[in-house]
């Protein structure tokens, strides 16, 4: 952009305003700025380098199971173990008794960023602790 031209045709310092080094605290603030920019670029470049064309890898973990007036709530934390983000991630929770599915509940997460977790919950009418809890991921969208 135009910035390369400025140095050659810079207006000289005006009289009465001597060229002085920036004060101490300005150096401190500038150091913080430099650190933050370089660290950000470093983190982003590292993830760009390692996470190229990766696919999301979601995993479900039960946080808690609670009895509620309308049934049971299974609160879950979905963690994405890959660096790629999944949008509109859909998963189904099932209660099984033997080979038979007795109840099913669905959850959709708007976004599951790479390496991050999001929380949600499944509602069931039956007590999940008396059944086998099973998860399956249905689909996701690339953001």
């Amino acid at each position, binding site marked *: 952009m135009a910035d390369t031209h400025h140095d050659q045709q810079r207006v000289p310092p005006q009289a009465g305003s001597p060229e002085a080094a*920036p004060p101490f605290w300005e150096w401190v603030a500038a150091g913080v*700025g430099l650190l933050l920019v370089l660290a950000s670029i470093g983190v982003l470049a590292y*993830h760009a380098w390692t996470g190229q064309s990766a696919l999301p890898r979601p995993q479900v973990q039960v946080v808690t199971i609670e009895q509620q007036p309308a049934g049971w709530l299974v609160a879950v934390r979905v963690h994405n173990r890959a660096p790629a983000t999944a949008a509109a991630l859909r998963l189904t929770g099932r209660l099984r008794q033997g080979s038979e599915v007795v109840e099913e509940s669905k959850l959709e997460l708007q976004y599951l960023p790479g390496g991050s977790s999001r929380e949600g919950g499944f509602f069931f009418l039956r007590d999940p602790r008396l059944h086998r809890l099973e998860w399956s991921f249905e689909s996701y969208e690339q953001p």
Partner: protein
Amino acid sequence: MTSHTRRRNIDFLRGLARAFAGAIIFALPLLMTMEMWFLGFSMDAWRLALFLVLFFPVLVALSWHIGFEDTFSWRDDVVDALVAYAVGFCSAGLILLVLGVLDSTDSPREIVGKVSLQAVPASIGALLAQTQLGEQKAEGAARRQGPRYASELFIMGVGALFLAFNLAPTEEMLALAFRMTQGHALLLVALSLALMHAFVYGVAFHGRPRAHGETPAWSLFLRFTIVGYAIALLLGAYILWSFGRLDGVSLLVAVKAVTVVGFPAGIGAAAARLIL
């Protein structure tokens, strides 16, 4: 520490407080925009890193124009740009934290993405706070005597960048591009140019670049309106590409989306000469 140095440090801290105010004012609309949080983690990491690298010389040049402090040397402009970046990062991080956008379950990549993206408009605000909230306007204008045309185009570029950056993250840019016919897009180009020219004409009679008072309208139109619009379109396209908004869309839709962003970007470019 002499009393003079202490006074300079106090002046700097006062300027720093003003910079934080400017950063928050300029970044607040985007800090409260959902698409910006999502872009923080969904945006391609290379493109975001590239944006941060390319944005730095822009901040240095902007610092030269308006000055976080009274800067006269290249070193001071770099220091000022770094201070503006620091203020941008800290204010964006703080606000996102208070708003609950940053969470303990977020990965480092997600946090860095969200904060560094918001630091861009915030750091522009941190630098501009010196002219808009302070009293250095006259001086800033005086410093722009040298390479006036290049300097004016740069200021137009900053205006375009800021406005384009504010609108390009939203879903509406592509939604509008899908709705609009080619006729709509052509009308929008004409409208953008007409409004931009009104601003360019306004600056010519605003008094500051006095020489423009005698220049014919077609010269102003070619040198400022058309060139400014071209800058706005290019920056709009670059920002849309950075945000991944042009990925997988047809050339026609991409061109329409660029004209959609080019509308606010062009007005930002033309108005920046009046405001900055």
